[in-house]
């Protein structure tokens, strides 16, 4: 009996170990070996639909040259994607392509995580995308990743609230920030404290997440083009002291805090769908807000204008890029896939389902919504071309953004010594970036 049990147990262990073996694609007797491309990307149901169509069409291009290619997607929430890519590289996981946030292209390129694709994209091909997209996908003058989409921001507003406040909406020019600027004047008109308890029920302007994408432009807008404040970081990409904490930037940070605690036109914490919920009159955001409005708040009357600014109008650009990992064993297929996906033929599917500002010049110059001067997307393109700048060029972007988020949270929490806070964090940003010294030489 016991011997029988032992034998049975050994068989079970042996079978389970055998079953753990990896399942490689079986070779076919005819045609190229089947290839499975593994793509690590953000979890987005709209993108999932787009990529379904992209993959289907990719397999038919060039007379079915890539019909042997399957594409599998490993999706992660936004906050987990960067650590996931890092883990995949460290463990040499079987990942061919990663969707990389534009500002992190330099970080991964510096660490030899993604392949230099300069020799695989001609100058003509690079003109497919906006110059900002090419810059964001590059590192030290080399091209590492074509874009999936682009982004820019406008100040979206509740038309009914603007009418009630008597604000003229005939002009789309942005309002100037500052204690004497028309932004504050108008935000005060739009802020409503019905019960007089000192906490408005409706704020003049919304509060976004505490990230560089939304609030990094606060300091940058405070300086003239080319100034230290505008640059936010030195040309070496690792020195923040004297730039992040320049006097003009500090004044702008102080004003942002004053909008919460002194003028009370802005909430201290972010509120989901703040404008659509009737809790703010305006919302600084990308054009994706149009999709949210149409899907979830179809009766909401929304307008758009250029964003507020301090000295120099500015908005951050940039979104996801395709990066081919150095560990890929299917480079040719991966390259062909990202070339197709980022081409006009592929990008049109992303536009179709996701409705986000495409990076492809031909698309945003021909799609009706971007061409129609009465459509806010046309204003978005104009502002993108006029004032859109990529986020700061540094391989230490993740370190910088982590510290920026801490800084902004403290600022919005009412830290009294704003100048001291800015200087402290500028010093920490500089210190954390030193490991990348010489990256662009």
């Amino acid at each position, binding site marked *: 009996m*016991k*011997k029988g*049990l*032992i034998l049975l*147990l*050994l068989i079970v*262990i042996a079978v389970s170990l055998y079953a753990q073996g990896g399942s490689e694609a079986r070779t076919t007797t005819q045609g190229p070996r089947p290839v499975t491309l593994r793509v690590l990307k953000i979890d987005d149901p709209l993108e999932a639909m787009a990529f379904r169509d992209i993959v289907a069409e990719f397999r038919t291009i060039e007379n079915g040259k890539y019909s042997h290619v399957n594409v599998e997607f490993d999706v992660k929430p936004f*906050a987990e994607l*960067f*650590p996931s890519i*890092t*883990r995949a*590289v*460290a463990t040499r996981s079987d990942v061919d392509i990663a969707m990389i946030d534009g500002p992190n292209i330099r970080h*991964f390129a510096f*660490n030899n*995580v993604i392949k230099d694709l300069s020799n695989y994209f001609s100058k003509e091909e690079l003109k497919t995308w906006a110059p900002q997209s090419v810059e964001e996908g590059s590192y030290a003058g080399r091209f590492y990743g074509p874009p999936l989409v682009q982004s820019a921001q406008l100040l979206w507003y509740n038309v009914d609230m603007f009418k009630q406040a008597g604000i003229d909406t005939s002009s789309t020019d942005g309002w100037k920030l500052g204690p004497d600027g028309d932004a504050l004047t108008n935000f005060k008109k739009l802020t409503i404290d019905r019960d007089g*308890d000192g*906490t*408005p029920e409706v*704020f003049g302007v919304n509060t976004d997440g*505490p990230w560089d994408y939304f609030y990094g432009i606060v300091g940058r807008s405070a300086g003239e083009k080319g100034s230290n404040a505008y640059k936010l970081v030195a040309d070496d990409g690792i020195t923040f002291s004297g730039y992040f904490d320049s006097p003009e930037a500090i004044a702008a940070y102080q004003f942002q805090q004053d909008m919460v605690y002194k003028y009370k036109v802005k*909430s*201290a*914490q972010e*509120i*989901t769908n703040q404008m659509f919920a009737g*809790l703010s009159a305006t919302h600084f955001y990308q054009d994706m807000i149009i999709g949210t409005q149409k899907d979830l708040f179809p009766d909401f009357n929304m307008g758009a204008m250029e964003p507020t600014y301090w000295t120099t109008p500015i908005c951050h650009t940039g979104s996801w890029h395709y990066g081919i990992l150095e560990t890929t064993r299917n480079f040719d297929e991966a390259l062909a896939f990202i070339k197709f996906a980022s081409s006009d033929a592929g990008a049109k599917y992303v536009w179709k389902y996701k409705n986000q500002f495409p990076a492809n010049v031909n698309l945003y110059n021909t799609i009706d919504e971007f061409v129609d001067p009465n459509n806010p997307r046309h204003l978005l393109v104009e502002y993108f071309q006029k004032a859109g700048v990529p986020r700061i060029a540094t391989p230490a972007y*993740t*370190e910088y953004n*982590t510290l920026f*988020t*801490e800084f902004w*949270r*403290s600022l*919005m*929490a*009412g*830290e009294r010594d704003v100048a001291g806070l800015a200087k402290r964090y500028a010093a920490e940003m500089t210190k*954390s970036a030193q*490991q990348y010294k010489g990256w662009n030489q």
Partner: protein
Amino acid sequence: MKTCNSSLRASKLLLILFVLPALLNFIVFRYLPIFWALRTSFYNYSLLGGYRGFIGLENYSSLLKDTAFLQSMRVTLQYFIIYVPSVVFLALILGNFVSMTKPGVNFLRAIIFIPVVTSFVVVSIVWGMLLNRDVGMVNAILNNLGFSRVPFLMNARTALPTVALISVWKNVGYSMIIIVAGLKGVDKSLYESAYIDGASSFRIYWSITLPMISRQIMFITIWATLQAFQSFVPIQTLTGGGPNRSTNVIVYHIYNIGFNFGRMGYAISMSIILLVILLLVSIIQMRMFKRDY
């Protein structure tokens, strides 16, 4: 005799074979990574850059001068001081209450336990909304009662206690169930004897109930301690370590250093220090509760 020995050997072999999968699991997925981590802490290591050279104890000596690390340890200690006594005390009270044979206690027990089985991310997001300074329900009630609004998660003084209490609310149900199980195991005849001898309710609780459930109290204390020192989800979801790093607990700090600042070797050295601290604390707590088992 021979048959007896071979039968004994077969029994031992069978025993080992049954334990082997679990043992392998522990070795491969727990102890080997710990030893690998310990080895890696002596190197300048990052996930993307790999091993960049042996540096000996440099990571550990840097920790002594790292004000951010020391601050995160202080914050974690503050969190521990709020969290552990709250969980233990509440678990005892609730456990005793739901152990009574009264109508509705089963329902109450279930209500208290529901947060335990709810995702901590979801719990954190919901509490974040409730505690929002400007539009949250809690502040709306406070305002209506004539109190000033409280920036629970936006103030360096209130953020940590707020997060700790949210964690208490989420986790106390588990400790309560442990206490309930312990109370059910107490011999009723001990209480009867005590009543006959004229002991007061407090005396009975202090001299009979508490000693009889001391193992359970020890367990929930150690469990709560481990949870306190490893708190991460509510910090990441609600405060991001702020404001002003007032909620920057050690595990969150380690995560930031390892994944966002690319210094995994340094982060691992912090983890090793944390492991040693937790081992010491657990040993001390077990000794404090030691009985003749």
